[in-house]
């Protein structure tokens, strides 16, 4: 493994499979009466979150505690960032207290790379702007593999706000690396130009993209990142791209429906689909803890010599 996990590009195919296999072993710890192992005893991990997050931050924190690391959360709303400190200065100050790892979420793409250049601590990207969210893609891959026993050759359809989605970029990189056939669909205003170069099929017609899919992954409409009129109205969006039972029926009978959360019910996904029999949305959340334990464990080791 490299020093940091900033992007799926940092991982080889073999490393991805190693993470997924390690996740399998980590999951068993969560089923024990004492859900804790001493592995990261004495390691300090700082969770530095510049954007609101419940799921990801909680998930990392539980994973860190199950591995016995000392954890510390910095919520930016109560920190000196409010007094005008730059990201680099905040990072150097945290670094001066010698943590072993920093888990960071930031609204700017590439914020993790900046930290990586100035910090000796290992950096895990927990979402940087519209760029990447590697641990989300890893937990999605783990969930898919658990249901389908493989990833290679599956048709995975990703629908929604593709433009603003870091989950999309990490998933496309990971799934194509492992040989899945990835389709994406969304309103033309929310499809990043040139996305075909990542090796995905693009269709503006969601019914075509969903036909025969093994996996449907819905993405949230990120209104907080939209500065302009990307879609006519939420109602019209639901009508044209929302995942309804009728659309699910076009996919394979054993399709699974995924969503990285938080969901906008009635916008990108109908409530009866989100809560329906094909939905694995809460399994994704449960698997998130095990995947993060695997990543923390594997990154805590020595750096590869190359």
């Amino acid at each position, binding site marked *: *493994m490299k020093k940091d996990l900033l992007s799926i590009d940092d991982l080889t195919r073999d490393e991805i499979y*190693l993470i997924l*296999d*390690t996740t*399998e*072993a*980590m999951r*068993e*710890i969560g089923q*024990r*009466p*004492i859900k*804790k*192992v*001493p*592995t990261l005893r004495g*390691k300090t991990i700082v969770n530095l979150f510049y954007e609101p997050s419940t799921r990801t931050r909680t998930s990392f924190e539980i994973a860190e505690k199950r*591995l016995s690391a000392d954890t510390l959360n910095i919520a930016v709303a109560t920190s000196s960032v409010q007094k005008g400190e730059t990201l680099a200065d905040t990072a150097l100050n945290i670094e001066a207290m010698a943590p072993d790892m920093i888990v960071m979420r930031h609204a700017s793409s590439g914020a993790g790379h900046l930290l990586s250049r100035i910090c000796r601590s290992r950096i895990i990207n927990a979402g940087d702007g519209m760029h990447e969210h590697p641990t989300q893609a890893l937990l999605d891959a783990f969930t898919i593999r658990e249901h389908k026993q493989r990833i290679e050759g599956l048709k995975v359809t990703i629908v929604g706000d593709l433009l603003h989605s870091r989950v999309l970029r990490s998933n496309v990189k990971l799934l194509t690396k492992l040989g899945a056939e990835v389709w994406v669909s969304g309103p033309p205003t929310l499809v990043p130009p040139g996305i075909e170069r990542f090796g995905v099929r693009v269709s503006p017609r969601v019914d075509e993209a969903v036909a025969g899919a093994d996996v449907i992954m819905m993405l949230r409409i990120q209104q907080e990142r939209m500065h302009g009129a990307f879609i006519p109205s939420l109602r019209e969006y639901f009508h044209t791209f929302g995942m309804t039972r009728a659309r699910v029926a076009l996919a394979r009978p054993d399709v699974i429906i995924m969503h990285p959360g938080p969901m906008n019910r009635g916008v990108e996904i109908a409530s009866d689909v989100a809560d329906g029999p094909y939905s694995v949305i809460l399994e994704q959340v449960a698997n998130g803890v095990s995947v993060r334990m695997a990543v923390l*464990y*594997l990154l*805590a*080791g*020595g*750096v*590869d*010599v190359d």
Partner: protein
Amino acid sequence: MPVVMDADRMGRSLARIAHEILERNRAVEELALVGIRTRGVPLARRIAQSIREINRHEIPTGALDITLYRDDLMRTAVGAQPVIRRTEIPFSIDNRRILLVDDVLYTGRTIRAALDALIEFGRPKAIQLVVLVDRGHRELPIKADYVGKNLPTSPSQSVQVHLTEIDGRDEVEILES
């Protein structure tokens, strides 16, 4: 590369250990076997099989991965972390007599880690240690209760156990390094 135990000797040793276990533990229903990954697991299954042949009693058998409890994790700046495999103990260890099974007893550090790992699953009535080979050179105060073969070695040698389930043959050999 001298072979110090062949398939026949290994079979006899394990059968003898099965008899010794029954001799020392009257309450068979309290017993459970836990093999340490990797090679302790097939050994534990074979001992369970031997006991079944002797008295038709089914001893619950589990597998323990001790990697996360090792005392040498993260002590080097270079190289990948050891691979973790699954721990599977599908029964409660509370109030049971646990037979912990490993292939080679050497420094005792693996057993120390295994004891720590096991205790987190509950409070067994007792833990007894079964090893196929005891090669000496202990670094911790740990002693086996059942030994297939005591093998005097020098620290520069390595003892390799091969099992049919994993390596395609039953054999113990000493390698000079």
